[in-house]
């Protein structure tokens, strides 16, 4: 990877963390969740709350990308965006809610400039960003069949602004701005994704780390070849839902792990996964 080769004579001048990234980073190595602990990760330090399920989820997502050296992340406002500056990949924060529109333009630009490379674009955004304020661009990017993956970090509310109700909050929950309990049901967003013609839709939790990794990888590969894909990761907010940091994983099990794919996506996944790893195309 040319962008991470040190100019001769500058190797020792670089701070240790960059030397580590060069020597032990994941670029071009086809690593996954099971390899965590054996390489320099693309996200380590971050300023999120102790026990944050969202921080853990992003760590797992980034470790699962099939092609991190050619992947650009698009985020949006929310807790995740506080973490993103620490990410050792190109990542975009434009505004709140416009991530799928930004990703549409970015994906098309990268395809024009690098037609020979598999430049992946992956949206990583919170539930408010994806399903509330960003609903229109999310759905329209799916209807337009934009070839990128949307990952929702579903912590069931607006955590960054202080724990308000979102469309993904469960009915009856008493949170800020839902003082009498949320009055309508949690949005069935993974069902919406299917209706909006996503080629691959999964719901998962960081408590199932390897399954999460497999789903993210599948979603990115299907998006590259076929069409939009969606992964919804349930990662409740211990700060706003007031449980202890060490309870996050237990609480995040409170969701169903589901996987849906179109026959075309299924055929693609099968064809990729039956190949031995060494044969996988790396750019």
């Amino acid at each position, binding site marked *: 990877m040319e*962008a991470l080769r040190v100019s001769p004579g500058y190797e020792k001048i670089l701070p240790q963390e960059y030397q580590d990234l060069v020597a032990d980073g994941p670029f071009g190595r086809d690593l996954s969740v099971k390899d965590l602990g054996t390489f320099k990760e693309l996200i380590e330090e971050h300023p999120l709350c102790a026990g944050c399920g969202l921080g853990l989820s992003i760590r797992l997502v980034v470790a699962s990308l099939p092609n991190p050296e050619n992947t650009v992340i698009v985020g949006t406002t929310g807790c995740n965006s506080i973490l993103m500056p620490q*990410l050792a*990949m190109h990542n*975009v924060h434009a505004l709140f809610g416009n991530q799928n*529109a930004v990703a549409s333009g970015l994906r098309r*630009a990268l395809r024009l400039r690098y037609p020979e490379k598999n430049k992946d674009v992956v949206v990583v955004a919170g539930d408010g960003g994806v399903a509330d304020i960003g609903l229109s661009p999310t759905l329209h990017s799916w209807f337009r069949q934009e070839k990128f993956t949307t990952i929702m970090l579903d912590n069931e509310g607006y955590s960054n602004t202080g724990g308000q109700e979102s469309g993904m909050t469960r009915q009856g929950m008493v949170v800020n701005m839902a003082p009498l309990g949320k009055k309508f049901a949690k949005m069935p967003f993974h069902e919406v994704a299917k209706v909006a013609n996503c080629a691959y839709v999964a719901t998962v939790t960081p408590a199932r780390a390897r399954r999460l990794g497999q789903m993210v990888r599948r979603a990115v590969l299907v998006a590259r070849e076929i069409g939009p894909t969606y992964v919804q990761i349930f990662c409740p907010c211990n700060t706003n839902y007031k449980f202890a940091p060490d309870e996050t994983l237990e609480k995040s099990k409170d969701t169903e792990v589901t996987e849906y794919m179109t026959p075309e996506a299924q055929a693609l996944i099968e064809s990729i996964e039956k190949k031995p790893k060494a044969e996988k195309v790396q750019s």
Partner: protein
Amino acid sequence: MPAQKIVSPERIFFEAPREKKFLIGNEAVGEAIKRANVDVVVVYPVTPQSEAAHVLGDLYAQGYIKDYYRGEDEFNVMSAVAGAAMGGVRVFTATCGPGTLRAFEMFPCWAGERLPIVCAFMTRGVNAPLTIQPDNIEIGWLADTGMLIFHAEDPQEFFDMILKAFIVAEQPDVHLPVGVCVDGFFVTHTREIVELPPEDEALPPYDPSVSPVVTMDMETVPVRHMKDPFVMKSNYISYNAHASWQQEVRAAAERSRKYIAKYMGNSVEVVHPEAEVLFMTSGTAAAQARVAMERLREEGIDIGLAKIKVIRPFPDQEVMEAAARARTIIVPEHNITGWLAREIKSRVSDNAKIFGGPRVFGGMTMPPEVIVTETKKLLAERGGHLGLRRPLVAARG
């Protein structure tokens, strides 16, 4: 599409032979983009910009534009072209009025992200009540977004400014978005002679490698990069970083002056600079004021015209110089807020001599007769203490 050869901007702007066509402003947009080597266009239809949006689609079908789609709304259109620009390609879009307002959050974002996006604004009034008619109130709002803002008088100038906007925008020391504005309908739907360079010649492509910021492609160093990083930790250092960032965006606009002068000439066009009364205006109000000026001069009134072509960066020096010679300055405008009069008054120290008006808006035409009448009324009132060199023909009985 004909095979196009890449030529220098100077060749297209100044040297190539030009052929006369009879075009509406919206067609002139297409003719500019045809020669602009644009990669991606995302656009949403809105009267009076829609024909331009159609033409852009046709250019995509013909191969002049590499990728194109109809966005879901203006906020997301402006977001999509931002994404494409971050990916290192040349983009173009257009909107107006309600679309401008719906998209507004993105304009300071473009400037802060240092994206050299060119956007045409075919200005129109805003609701309520509903209007689709010409009114350029939105230019005043756009002026403080950090974008460069040009204001064209007719389809010819619209064509030239759009092409030149790309080259000014993409200078490494500028690298800012440019809004090329016209008064909707009066330019977009008015058919006039437009002189065009050959259609088989195009501008050089955008080169993202000289960008002053990082292109988001995982090819540009450093790979450890967020566009744009949060500088919002609660401490003085973060605030200072944000403040400095804003200053740098404005500094980039200052640097554009050199390139605007090089490619567009003076930012203020002055006719009869020695005149003691001056119309100082922009856009189609300048066209109407030209006609009014001729009629008033026929009646013996010593009046000239200063047309301001560039609203950002505001041509302070040129405006001050033009204003210094005049004893009365009249600023006709196509909006109710009088943003141009405000700009001029804030630059000229003896600004009691500046009169904002006449103003029309909401779709109303500004007939030269109205400018003539209002000018005569004003001069008749002021005549006594103006020290005019000769008596004015007063309209008031």
